[in-house]
């Protein structure tokens, strides 16, 4: 009887977990679709998550935090882990071209210069994207990040 109750309870818990997962996915997707993370100011300001493909040194995933102080775009790549400050950044409204430059350190402590170039897609959305390429002396590849 106790085993039966335990089995039933286990199934109920498992079902509740699946339902909760569905609800969470729907909620997160719903929030994204309704602009819950609104940002109507400078288009680059915010947190960006994405990939710089084939980056052997730092991995494919990138997290980017960008800010705008009225004169300059500032920010950091992978804050908390790699802590690579943005050294130079620009946004050209003609085509919404984005250029970001940053200097990381490799395992030996040598400086590695990264350049990200792309353009903003879906400018009007809070979840707009930067799509383009990245390059460094050690490699290059596709770049894409979406504002969170």
């Amino acid at each position, binding site marked *: 009887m106790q085993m039966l109750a335990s089995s*039933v309870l286990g199934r109920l818990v498992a*079902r509740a977990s*699946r*339902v909760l997962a569905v609800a969470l996915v729907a909620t997160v997707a*719903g929030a994204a679709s309704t602009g819950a993370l609104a940002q*109507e*100011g400078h288009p680059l300001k915010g947190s960006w998550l994405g990939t710089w493909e084939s980056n052997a040194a730092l991995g494919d995933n990138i997290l980017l935090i960008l800010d705008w102080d*009225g004169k300059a775009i500032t920010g950091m790549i992978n804050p908390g882990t790699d802590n690579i400050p943005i050294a130079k950044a620009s946004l050209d409204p003609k085509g919404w071209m984005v250029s970001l430059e940053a200097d990381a350190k490799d395992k030996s402590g040598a400086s590695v210069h990264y350049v990200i170039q792309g353009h903003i897609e879906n400018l*009007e959305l809070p979840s707009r994207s930067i799509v383009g390429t990245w390059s460094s002396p050690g490699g290059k590849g596709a770049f894409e990040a979406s504002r969170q």
Partner: protein
Amino acid sequence: MSGAHGLGRVAARRLALACLAGLFVSAGTAFAHHELAAKFDTSKTTTLAGIVTAVDWRNPHTHVFFNVKDKQGDASNWAIELDNTIVLEKSGWRADTLRAGDALTVRGHPARDGTRQISGDTVTQTATGQKVLFAKDTTPAPPKTPRATPRGPDGHPLLGGPDGYWGYPSSTVLVQNGAAVKMDADGLLANLADAPKVAPFQPWALGVYRHRQERQLRDDPMFLNCKPPGGVRYLQSPLGFQLIEDRVRQRVFVLIGSGNHNYRIVYLDGRKNVGQVRGDDDNPLYYGRGVGKWEGDTLVVETAGFNEDFWFTNGGLPHTNLLSMTERFSRPSFDTLHYEVRIDDPGAYTQPWSASWDLRWVDGQELPVFFCQENRS
């Protein structure tokens, strides 16, 4: 046991379906409330004649459905989109002004997406030729004899009154003083090339403004997401606002008729506008944080501490959290409120700029009952 098991499946499905339904609802109401040009092609005008089949009397837009026959005699059902019920009631409409079976001729703009919808600029009863809708909430004529500015015990003008509110702004769009720019009441430019004249934009801000204009303002978060009409936007809304002066607490409550009946507080008790960036940056707000003082007969309010989650004007002028405003409220006569604002946002504009307009006292009335959220149901 099987019953409990079955019940769990049903409950799980229902919950999942409810979540998905919520997702579709949230994604599918993009055009529920909008600027006119965002949905209708205002460069084209269409006239249709037909028979009313139903009236949906509600905010933010009333819809009249009517059957229109083509040359072959086949009927198709069209929707006439009208203004909100507040404007319609001010124009003499009631929910039963039109009934099923009434014959109408409608003149308006067709929907941009080609669906069978038309904006109801003019609605005429076919049989009598009588126009049943004035599409605009027109400003009432001023009194023949101007009334004196009311004053409080301290001699300062009273900015409010026992019964009434401020409405009918002389301008519903924000343009820097001296600029000659043609745009509609929603702030949509007649000529996109005039965009740089509207304000001294930084390049990125001009780009964002042009982008919003090119998309006919359809991304406006006030309409899409019921974001509050912050900044100066509520001051240019036909739905008006009330100024409630609390002289004991030394503050002015601003009750806002548009949005969702939000309010802001202007503090007159001498406190400073604190925070990290030009205001209350620890808790950035839609209406900012305002501190004011009297300079003669003018209430001067320094407002800062805005968030970046909304459009602070009709027409989609961008701003940043560096925005601060110097607002000047004066009441040159009983029926007129004069408002001047100096916009200082070094994050979006190359220099401070100013604009001004008047509002009319709407005597003997409370703020209209309008909730943006009605749009979302």
